[in-house]
């Protein structure tokens, strides 16, 4: 077989460079991510939160819904380490179980928003044309209505707000931002030569989207989805505050804090609001750190070397 220009062959870099394993861009990103101390700290904290939520039954004997009317608004004591709430339910148990709901809400709103955003964004960004302008006008329209206002209006229309419904509503209201990001990423990828190259070898649209667009768009998508999850946890608590979140007695961090609306709780029962407040703060902070770490890890600027 014909072999070309032996003398032009690279003296392989591995001989001159330190021996490196071949890492895929994904592995490289992961490597960069793992070097980011804040992001790792975020991971650790988030993992603890998630574990605490998952293993709630092991961490407390109390039922978050079980009330004891003889022990209302108690200060911390040996039985109720964070005291009890205004219905005599154990705050610690509610904190743990509330974490489940809050995290699930954050996660599933993010997922469903991502799903809508991905589908519409891909269609819009890849095919362009009429369908693109329709989707974009639609997103303009949704964006024109302030997020909370729209969410509130829809929630008010619903007779009963369940977690599933809540998730769907938030997703319906918040898809445009992700859709636009995904569309933008796709549009810029569309101009890249490697996409033309893929078309030149006769790859189908499906293949181009799946093998060429998505892997390259995954960075911004993951980053934005992560940050969105943080936002959603805050949104949930805000809606709970207005009384339009997940209704009691289901515990969520949001409706735990919103019980602190009165100065009495604020002043005399810090154990009732500081833990859920901290839980939200830490979770959102961790997620933001992770998102930021992911952003750095996926940053194309650091990809060249």
């Amino acid at each position, binding site marked *: 077989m014909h072999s070309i220009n032996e003398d032009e062959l690279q003296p392989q870099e591995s001989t001159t460079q330190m021996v490196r394993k071949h890492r895929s861009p994904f592995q490289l990103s992961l490597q960069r991510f793992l070097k980011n101390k804040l992001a790792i700290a975020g991971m650790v904290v988030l993992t603890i939160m998630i574990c605490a939520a998952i293993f709630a039954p092991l961490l407390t004997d109390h039922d978050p*819904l*079980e*009330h004891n*009317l*003889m*022990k*209302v*608004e*108690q200060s911390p004591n040996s039985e109720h380490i964070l005291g009890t709430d*205004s*219905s005599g339910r154990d705050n610690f148990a509610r904190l743990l179980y509330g974490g489940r709901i809050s995290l699930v809400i954050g996660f599933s709103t993010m997922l469903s928003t991502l799903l809508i955003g991905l589908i519409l964004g891909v269609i819009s960004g890849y095919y362009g044309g009429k369908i693109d302008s329709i989707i974009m006008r639609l997103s303009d329209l949704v964006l024109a209505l302030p997020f909370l206002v729209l969410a509130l209006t829809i929630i*008010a229309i619903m*007779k*009963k*707000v*369940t977690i599933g419904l809540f998730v769907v509503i938030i997703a319906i209201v918040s898809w445009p931002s992700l859709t636009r990001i995904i569309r933008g990423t796709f549009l810029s990828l569309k101009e890249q030569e490697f996409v033309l190259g893929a078309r030149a070898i006769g790859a189908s649209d499906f293949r181009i989207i799946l093998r060429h667009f998505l892997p390259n768009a995954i960075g911004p998508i993951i980053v934005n989805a992560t940050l969105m999850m943080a936002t959603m946890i805050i949104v949930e608590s805000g809606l709970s505050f207005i*009384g339009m979140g997940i*209704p*009691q*007695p289901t515990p969520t961090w949001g409706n735990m804090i919103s019980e602190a*609306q*009165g*100065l*009495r709780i*604020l002043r*005399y029962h810090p154990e009732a609001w500081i833990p859920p407040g901290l839980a939200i703060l830490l979770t959102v902070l961790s997620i933001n750190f992770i998102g930021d770490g992911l952003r750095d890890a996926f940053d194309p600027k650091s990809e060249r070397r």
Partner: protein
Amino acid sequence: ACNSKDDATGDTATETEKPSEVAETEEDEKAAEEGPKKGGTIVGAMYSAPAGMFNPIFYEDSYEANIIDFVFEGLVSQNESLEFIPSLAEKWETNDDQTEITFFLQEGVKWHDGEEFTADDVVYTYKAMSDPDYESAGGVRANYVQPLLGYDEYQSGETDEFVGVVADGDYKVTFKFAEPNVSPLYYASFPIIPEHIFKDIPVKDIPEAPESLQPNKLIGTGPFKFTDMIEREQYVLSRNDDYWKGAPLLDEIVWKVVAQSVMIGLLEKGEIDFVASPGGIAPADYDIVNDFGNVVIVEQADFGYQLLGFKHNHRTTADVESGALTPDNWVPNKKLSDPKVRQAIAYAVNRVGLVGEGHGEGLLHGRGQPINSPIAQQMWAYDENAVTKYDYDPAKAEAMLDEAGYVDVNGDGFREDPDGNEWVLNMDYPLGNELRERSAPIIQADLEKVGIKVNLRQPSEMSVYVPELTDDNTDWDLYLIGWNLSSTDPDPSGLWATRAGYNFSRWNNPKSEELLQKAVKAPEAFDQKYREEVYAEWQKLFSEDLPALLLYAQNSLWAYNDRIQGIKILPHTMYQDSHEWWVEDAE
């Protein structure tokens, strides 16, 4: 006093066996030493801004009443025993069959603009409420005029002669009723508005008129004038120097709208001086506020109660669509049709637990009472001895259920109905009252403790809840609701008569119907003793047949800064005779 109506939100209620046991004594002494002073401003707090309609015949919310109470007066008011006492009317007399009542008015009463108050103003007020356009313009107080003679003809426009209330000279006015009336004073207690201001404004335009809405345009006879407002923030009442009972001592009363969440802080700091109905202070805050040292708390039973309703019957879909309330078409709710079951439920609910017996207990922290009768406990008609009390007794409840055949046959921990079928009671509750929202899961747990499976459903906004409650062609079994009662007359038929719209239980008991009618039937009913007896019988029936389990009546907790003197605490209000209020630190 105005009948405050806090629609969706504040349906609080209670009773109190010991009306106004207040820490008044100390203050009274001090006051006596120094004597009342003129001047000063006090600040009252309300939690929500009034919608802005300050015309008594059109207002709706209780925040508006906060202004109206100081600006307008009725012919009569009520004393601490809830008896009617003279106000704008000096005295009155009824004819023999109680179809007419004649008032002799105070002379020399001046409207805020200096005009004389006369019998024509009284006539005008009632005429306006009978106007054909009154209801469509948004008026909701027609019940005050409906029993008047000739109301239907006048209201439907058949005649423009209004004969229900007639003046005889400037200071004599007669109310004429179509039928003998057992509580004519109630109907005559409505605040009077000035004819000279409104006579040229068509009734349908009154709601938009500045005279109904704006400071300085609003003219009443009360001790304070409405002089200034920053919408949704502040409402300023200034002294009416020409007040007929004597010039008020205070310069100004300022109402501020503050969030409930910060109220106690402001109260402690002295930035607000008093907070009363609607709302008052939260039961859980009682101990804290009590410790402030500068604040006096007034605790007394509220006019109203919360209840756990049993749907005795459902309406048919056809009825719902046609809007007919036809008891004959009603479909009995089998799940709850056995009175034993209802009684068992009543024993199973720990109402004392809900109320609690002190701070840190129950939802009310002890600031209220479980009640057993649907008549306000302050009322003469209230008779606690006539009723079954249903003290918390789960064992008894279980025994009764067993007896009624509701036993757990399949061993799932819940009882099945006598036929062995699954027996699940649906329970619904509305949003809007935090305590009530919290009580729902607690009641559910109580019932499940005795083996009754309860399907507690998601709460909904009052505006969604009530239509479903009303339509009733649903699968509802248990529901929560609360009522505010009038302080004027104990007649419960507005809520519990079979055909009453608000009889959400669709309670259809002929005996009850008979008693309710008997209690207001002339001429026997002119005798209060007689009515007392009939109502006692009815209350007994109620507590046995149980269209609803009455849960508790919350105490109203009013609070004011101890710099204010001269406040007169009545069961239904503390705003009466505000011209006598004064502050120690006035210059």
